[in-house]
């Protein structure tokens, strides 16, 4: 589907349809763009760091970028692997700012290790983080407006404190980006040779 956000399940476990449906619903509502779900055929195995026992999110982003379906507007990987960037103990997700790819993990969104995940809560948190990371690919930065999905999530407390919706200012910025992208993809008109 041309101009769609591709959402790929790239986790080790089975793709949970209700979870991914929730992600699709949130992205469609927030970005008003078509969303296409897909379970990837292979996995970014090179992203695994033996020393840390975690997956390097930057490597996953490169992996996704290299495989994004032609014509897709953005690509979001959803995984159950625990993600990290070298300087931090973990990240819930990562995205290329003003870029194409984003990734979000369910690993830390379920809560403390060993505790039973509340599937509903996990779905809500995952949807929020997906809206957040995809927002970065559209150039949105962290926002301090109360409740905005673009608020920094450094802890589960932060994730729970925000909504899955963009604030008015972030929405306006997103609309601008979308308009610019649409203009870039419009076919160029040839100037009339007689017009001076």
């Amino acid at each position, binding site marked *: 589907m041309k101009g769609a956000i591709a959402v790929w399940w790239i986790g080790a476990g089975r793709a949970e349809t209700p979870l991914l449906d929730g992600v699709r619903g949130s992205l469609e509502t927030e970005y008003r763009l078509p969303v296409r779900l897909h379970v990837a055929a292979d996995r970014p195995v090179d992203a695994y760091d033996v020393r840390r026992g975690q997956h390097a999110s*930057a490597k996953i982003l490169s992996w996704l970028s290299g495989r994004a379906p032609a014509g897709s507007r953005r690509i979001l990987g959803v995984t159950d692997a625990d993600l*990290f*960037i*070298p*300087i*931090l*103990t*973990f*990240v819930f997700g*990562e995205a290329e*700012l003003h870029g194409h790819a984003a990734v979000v993990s369910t690993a830390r969104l379920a809560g403390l290790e060993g505790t039973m995940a509340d599937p509903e809560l996990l779905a809500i948190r995952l949807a929020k983080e997906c809206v957040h990371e995809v927002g*970065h690919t559209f150039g949105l*930065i*962290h926002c301090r407006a109360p409740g905005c999905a673009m608020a*920094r999530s*450094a*802890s589960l407390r*932060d994730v729970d404190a925000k909504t899955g919706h963009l604030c008015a200012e972030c929405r306006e910025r997103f609309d601008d980006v979308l308009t610019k992208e649409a203009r870039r993809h419009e076919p160029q008109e040839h100037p009339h040779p007689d017009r001076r």
Partner: protein
Amino acid sequence: MSRKNTRILIVDDEEIVRESLSGWLEKDGYTLGTAPDGMSALKAVDDGDWSILVVDLKMPGIDGLEVLKRVKEKHAEVAIVIMTAFATVDTAVRAMKLGAYDYIVKPFDPEELTLMIQKIVGQQALVRENLILRKALRREHRFHDIVSKSPLMRDVLELSKTAARSASTILILGDSGTGKEILARAIHMESPRADKPFVAVSCAALTETLLESELFGYEKGAFTGAAGRREGKFEAASGGTLFLDEIGDISPKLQLDLLRVLEERRVTRVGGTESVPVDVRIIAATNRDLGKTVEEGKFRQDLYYRLNVIAIRLPRLTERREDIPLLVDHFLEHLGVEMSRDVEGISAEAMALLMAHDWPGNVRELRNVLERGLVVAKTPVIQASDLGLVPGASGGGSDRPASLSEVEKRHIAAVLHHAGGNVSQAARILDIDRVTLYNKIRKFHLRDVEEHETVAEPEKT
């Protein structure tokens, strides 16, 4: 300041660390930069306006602590966070001693890093806001180079502003060091003559004949050595203001000459026959009681009336103690620039000492004390001990010379203060035994002085 204006420099020899940390912080809207080693970090800091540095401890060449030390020497306002792979108490203590904002162990918890950066940005915003507010406050409390919020000075400055607009002669009265010349300059700057010269002459510094030729100028051959014509200060100040300091000290002959100039608005150069018209505004000043000098027959009454058209009395510093903090700020800002010293302020203890001092030399003495403090201070915050003021000593402000016993008392108090109240050390410096020193402390009631760090009653004369 918006987050975009907060500039963060990441210094690490590992590219992956630089990239991932700058990528993470970029999403907070900060402006990020990176440097792969200590040397390029120092260059970047000199070239750019960075608010925060996040520096790796271990780097080849110049390491993190050295970067911290060198940056803090020149740019004390930059907050520096040290990153390390292994936390050791020793390194943490060294980093903090060198002025690091904090110390963080790699990999960081995302929340810890976010909160730390937010805290630094918040504190820097407060510092900036404070600076802006202080500047605004100073603008509100200033009249050219004079800063004050005291009601006494408010009256002085209001009268000065009104007087500045007129062409009338002004007589400024006040003790030494109260700022008579500074007020005269401010009046000149506020007057319609501001773009014309302000010429100051100290009447007490010159002999009668020198002062005469200084004021009125001379013609060629007027006296031995007068090789050519020279214009006097009256002519030099043409269109502007002539400030005659210590007017109470001039000789009877010059009093008469001056009276003539004031009446006729013309001067005759020494050795000359022609008079030339002068257009100057006279501001005279004295620390004497000119009225009393007139009564004693030492100053011409007619000249006194000529000068005393608008009289402005500058209060002593002790009459406007509430201005001391404002003046301290004002002087430290100027002295810091003049002496190329990084100065953040003075400690609370030092301020208490300044507030309690007798200030016989008034504002000028305060400036000198701060200058000394700035020279002696080892940190950007001047400490009480840097000021060289002895709690209890008035600095010789009394009118009569001190007795031997008073000098002894003052000296012992000074040495005790220097020794931080340590009697044994003070006795060693004074080269007397401890028992003798204890007896003297008791005799002069100095124990209280040291214990309460307050001043003994100023000596009444």
